[in-house]
């Protein structure tokens, strides 16, 4: 869940629409199930495309495939070289909210952060450009670069085509 929040703003990485934590009926307090509501992509995933190719005896046009692959690489890069949330989030935690107009008001943690999400999107594009400039300069600015490994890259991820929702479950280990 944390991961969905961290990367929610990154283009090319899925964002969660909503989530809920539920305790199964009859289960003890410790075992909670987190339901995450994710966007539905009607074109399916890469595995579906591979399967379609196998069935039809067709292949990916190489160039198209590599362009697609490059897109995945770029998304993965933003995870491997995570530069912090584009808007106030990361900075806010570092305590220099004054670089953002109105940053002071957003220092509150927890649930408040969700409220800033629409703001995040607005400023996304702007930050994108800025990020482009920072690239190649190594660890820059507040907090430097954190790195995350996805650890489960494969063609066929994600939910099955449920009508418009997809509810994977994640089990919380602690808290």
């Amino acid at each position, binding site marked *: 869940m944390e*991961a*969905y929040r*961290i*990367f929610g703003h990154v283009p*090319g*990485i*899925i964002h969660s629409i909503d989530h809920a934590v539920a305790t199964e009926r009859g289960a003890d307090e410790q075992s909670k199930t987190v339901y995450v509501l*994710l966007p539905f*992509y009607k*074109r*399916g*995933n*890469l*595995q579906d*495309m*591979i399967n379609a*190719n*196998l069935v039809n*005896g067709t*292949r*990916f*046009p*190489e*160039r*198209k*495939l*590599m*362009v*697609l*692959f*490059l*897109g*995945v*690489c*770029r*998304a*993965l*890069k933003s*995870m*491997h*070289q995570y530069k912090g949330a584009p808007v106030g989030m990361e900075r806010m935690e570092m305590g220099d909210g004054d670089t953002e107009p109105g940053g002071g008001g957003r220092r509150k943690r927890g649930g408040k952060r969700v409220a800033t999400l629409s703001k995040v999107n607005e400023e996304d594009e702007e930050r994108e450009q800025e990020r482009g400039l920072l690239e190649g300069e190594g660890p820059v600015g507040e907090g430097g670069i*954190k*790195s*995350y*490994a*996805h*650890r*489960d*890259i*494969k*063609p*066929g*991820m*994600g939910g099955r085509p449920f009508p418009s929702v997809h509810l*994977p479950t*994640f089990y919380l280990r602690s808290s």
Partner: protein
Amino acid sequence: MIDDTGSAPILMDLGSVAASPLPITSATLAIATQDTAAEHSTMPYRAPELFDVQTGFVIDTKVDIWSMGCTLFACLVGKSPFEMRSDETGGTLSLCVQGGDWRFPDEGPGQTGGGIRRAGTNSSIKGKGVDSGGGGGGSSASPDQLKISETIKEVVRRCLKVEPAERPDIDELIAMVEDVIKGLTGDDE
């Protein structure tokens, strides 16, 4: 992993995401990491270092590079290189992965794809010995429809190095892929 809206890929299934690098400082952590990998990541696409996590190792983002290599291969061929290899040889998937035992379908044991790559690949794979790059066929004229550009194959080869340090990092991979795309302008089949 990729959902497709138009032509934009989307990375998903973030349940497995972990901070990197993760130094394996204790046997307990080694086992925990291995268990997590077994639970969260898919075997044919899982990097060799996650099959047998050793104390003293560092698990980092190179595991994703491996998976990217498997993914690209799967797009070209139809399934993970190690699924294919273990189907062919009857060996277990994990042995194929940890031995780096895979190859392109048009590069059978008797065939010569190009001596250079054989040498290169074999050097990183000890005890493989199935396909020795002997012979001297110049062009890798593949018999069937599976003709894959040499440049793309090279990307896969680079990603599927058993030794994580030998794999490119994401920047290098992006640069490679960009080069490949440049080289592919127009030519499609």
